[in-house]
Structures are given as C-alpha cells and as structure tokens.
C-alpha cells in the first residue's frame, strides 16, 4: 500500500488554555475525496488549521507527501501543495473575482485554459469576473473561494464546511463540482456536518469527537450501517434523505 498523502499521528493542539485536539490520528490517502465528520466543537476546523500551520501542534506529527510539515510556516505549507478553503470563505471582498484568482495563482499569470475549466463548474464567476467579490452572494463567494483553491494544480485541498448557510440549489452545484474535481489528480479533505451532502461524494470518512478521531473507514461502510451512523453521528440516515 502506498504512503498516504497526509498523515496526522497523535496530534495535540492547544488554543490558549484550551486543549482542543487530543491526539488526532488521521490518514488521507492519495487521490479521491476524504471526509472529516463530526458535531460542532469536535475539533474539525482546528484539525484543518493545524494542518495549515495556522495553529501550531503542541505534540504529534503531521506528514504531508513524505515530509513532516508540523514545524513549517503557513506559507511554506501552502507552497508544499496544500490549498485551504476556510469556513468563512475569506474571499478578499475589496478585490474583484479576477484579482482573487490572480493572487491565488502564485506561479504567474492566470492559466486561461484552467480558468475556462473553472468557469465550467461555476459559470457565475465568468459573469462577475470584474465585480468586487464582496458584492457577491454567499454561494457565489463560496465558488470564488473554491476556485481560488483550484486555480493552480495542488496536491491537497482542505475545504471547511462549504455548505454552511447555503441554499439547497447551491449545495447541489457544489456536489457536482466536487464530483468533477474528484476526477482530477487532486486529493480533497472535506470537513462537513452535513452527512447527506458528503455521503455520495466521500471515498473515505473519519469521524471526530472531543478532539479525537473516533472512527475511520470507507464511506460506503458508514452509509450502509445506520447503527454506526446513529452511534457516531447521533443521526439516522433516514432523517437526512
């Protein structure tokens, strides 16, 4: 079996006096879409921020593509090939859509073929290309945030709760976009609470609770096992269909 693209081993993260991650073990295989599920406060966002170096791990190792990135700065981690789409989307509202993507393209000018490919996912971005991103709706901002992450090839994309606060029609759009992205070489680690959103997308799933990963396996196994869902997520699949 090949080495996973990302592997967290015994990661602890403290934020001030709070001990948030309490020994996280997480494996993200190369290719496909891995899902990190869990209730509010389970430590999902902290896990992503720790991977990105935005919060430093106080113990444990974070290995990405064969090297330990736990001690690296956030820009170095991004340069190693990880893109991050935060929960807040964090689009630069004063910049236009084009300028947002232009900044995300670190290596040079925008690749027109790739931009056209992105417009295929999100036609709205073409329409609003020269509009300030701050004037867009929540769904459109989410499209800008995801487009920024894929405007250049990256090895791994971390996406934090992309469906939060979005209308069902936009969520369907995102499902279709992620399905297309899965066909590329990019690996995606998707944090979600919305099980119905990820159940058809995920290849593997990890479930967090109280700062630890309490379950890891194939998404198919979790989808097929309602008792497991009830135990891990406190829900029945029926209520989310």
């Amino acid at each position: 079996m090949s080495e996973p693209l990302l592997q967290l081993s015994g990661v602890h993260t403290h934020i001030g006096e709070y001990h948030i991650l309490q020994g996280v073990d997480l494996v993200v295989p190369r290719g496909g879409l891995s899902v990190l599920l869990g209730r509010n406060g389970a430590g999902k966002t902290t896990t992503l921020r720790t991977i990105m170096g935005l919060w430093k791990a106080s113990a444990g190792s974070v290995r990405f593509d064969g090297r330990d990135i736990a001690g690296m700065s956030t820009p170095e981690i991004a340069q190693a090939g990880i893109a991050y789409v935060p929960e807040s989307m964090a689009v630069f509202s004063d910049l236009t859509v084009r300028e947002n993507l232009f900044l995300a393209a670190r290596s040079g000018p925008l690749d027109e073929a790739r931009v056209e490919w992105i417009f295929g996912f999100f036609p709205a971005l073409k329409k609003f290309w020269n509009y300030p991103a701050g004037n867009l709706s929540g769904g459109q901002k989410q499209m800008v945030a995801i487009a920024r992450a894929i405007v250049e090839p990256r090895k791994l994309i971390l996406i934090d709760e992309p469906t939060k606060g979005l209308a069902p029609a936009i969520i369907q759009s995102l499902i279709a976009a992620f399905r297309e992205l899965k066909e590329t070489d990019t690996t995606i680690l998707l944090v979600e609470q919305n099980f119905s959103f990820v159940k058809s997308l995920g290849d593997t799933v990890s479930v967090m609770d109280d700062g630890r990963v309490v379950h890891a396996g194939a998404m198919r196994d979790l989808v097929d096992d309602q008792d497991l869902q009830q135990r891990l997520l406190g829900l029945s699949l029926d209520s989310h269909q």
Partner: protein
Amino acid sequence: MDLKTPAPVAAAADTAIPAAKVDIAPLLLVPVLMLAMVPLVGSFPTWVTLTVAGLAMGMMIFIMASGLTLVFGLMDVLNFGHGAFVSVGAYAATLVIIPMQGWMEADSLLMNLSVLALAITVAMVVTALLGWAFERIIIEPVYGQHLKQILITMGGMIVAEQLINVIWGAEQIALPLPTSLRGAIVLGDAAIEKYRLVAVVVGVVVFATMFLVLNRTKIGLLIRAGVENREMVEAMGYRIRRLFVAVFAAGSALAGLGGVMWGLYKETLTAAMGGEIMVMVFIVIIIGGLGSVGGCFIGALLMALVANYAGFLAPKVALVSNIVLMIAILLWRPAGMYSNLRR
C-alpha cells in the same frame, strides 16, 4: 492534468448580477467646499491664492500621512513615531543640499531640480533604511499590543529627535528654497507661489503612483488583500511578514519625502518638526478611514483647505477647524470616509 470541460453546475437562481457600489460622496466634498467658498471669500484672486495654498499644504500632509495609513491598515500598528521619519528625512536632505548650495542658488532650473531630486532620493533611502531597522528592533516585539506600540514608538521618536540633535546640533537649520522655486506666478490679480505648485504636482504624482501600485500590481493586490485578511494571504503561500517590512520601509520613505517637502516649505528645520505635525497627520488618517490611501488623500486636502479658508474668514475659528472637521466627518461616517485601500 487533463482538464475536461465539466457540465455547468452553478445554480441559475444564484447568478443575479450584484449591484456595484460606487461611493462618490467623499469625492465631492473637496470640489463642493472649494466652490462654496467662492462667494464667502468675495475676491476671486484671494480665493485662488487660498485654494492653491490649501491644496499644496494638503498634498504635503498627504505625503507624510499616506505611509502611516498603509502601515496601520496592513500591519495594525499604531506608529506614533512616524514623525521621526519626517524629521530625519528633512535633515538627511541637508546632506545633499548644504554641500551643493551653489547649485541651489544657481539661476538654472535644471541644476536646482537636480539637487532637489538627489536630496529627495537620499532622504527616502535613509528613512527607508531607518524604517526597516525601526520595524525590526522596535515594532516587531509589540505586534498586536496597541498600548505598548504607542509607548514604544513614542519613545523611539524621542530617541530619534535626540539623535538628530546629536548629529546636526540643536539649533534650527535654514533650508532656503532653490532660486527657481522662489517667488510667485501672477495670474491676473492672483499670486501663486511656485513652490506650492511643485508641492501639488509631487502630491498628485505620489497619489497616482500609490493608486496604480495598489490597483495594478500583484504587490498592491497583496497589500490590499493583507489589509483585509492577513491569515488567508499566508494560507495562499505568501510570506506576509516580508510584505509588512517592505510596506513599513516604503511608508517611512514617504514620510522622508514629506519631510523634505515640509522643510522646504517652512525653510527651517528642527528636530521636533515631525512630531509637531503628527496631530494633523493622525486627524487626516482618521477622517480618511484607517488604511485607505484615497481617504487619506481627500482628508488631507479637506483639512488643509478648511484651515486656510477658516484662517481667512474667521481666524479664531481656524484654531479649532481641524477638530471641528474631524467631529463632523466622524458623525457622518464613524469609520472615516473610506475604510479600505482601494478607494
């Protein structure tokens, strides 16, 4: 990677064109104020003289304030020592101007301007280097701690002023204008000092350059993005720390340029000249909107014009005109006229 053309996935319901927000009200303040003063001043030549003098003073204050507003907007640093760069810039210019006094007094515009250009270059290089050292030694340990920033940067300014006294002496230094820039141009009955026209031109050039850099270059976009969300800029792979240092040095160099302009305007230098003008500089960046170069530009022009008109129409009111203007602007827009770098 093979990029297949995917099926369009965006929801039609989410593609309404957003309304573009164009905020022109602050832009109108300066011309409206100028036009409103024509009947109140009464004499058109006097109005021209007052207006050009106000614009020139406003441009010089803008040059000094623009660096500070960038530093605050991007780095969230309250640099009360910014005035030190104004003073050091002016004194550094004397390293060129005094030895080349003959060129300053020559009856040749080219020779005069050559000395000025060299003096400004030296002043900007010296203040940029000083700004770099100031950021590394004084600011760096107190990022995110506003109270400590105020105390330590004020301390830094006091040290800089004393060092000026040590190096150049405590006496005032005369800094006469070059021959070609002395006197006034008479248009009809209106007399316009030549140096004030130069100050207006330099101010417009600085503003246009900053506007172009912030809007048309990747560095400028990174600065604007960094003002809005530093963390995200880092998560995109950019070392914002280096950008901070570069912006601090550039802001210090602009203060140095402003110091040379201000020193030539006053024709005398004192170590405290930078500190004395900081009240006006802070008023300008507050009413402009912290971090906004455009707001800083409009704020500086407004403040200088109001001070000039008030000084002519009601001299006693002129003593409080800056504060009254600030109160009025903040009652209208509590965050200042603009609150970002784009405008």
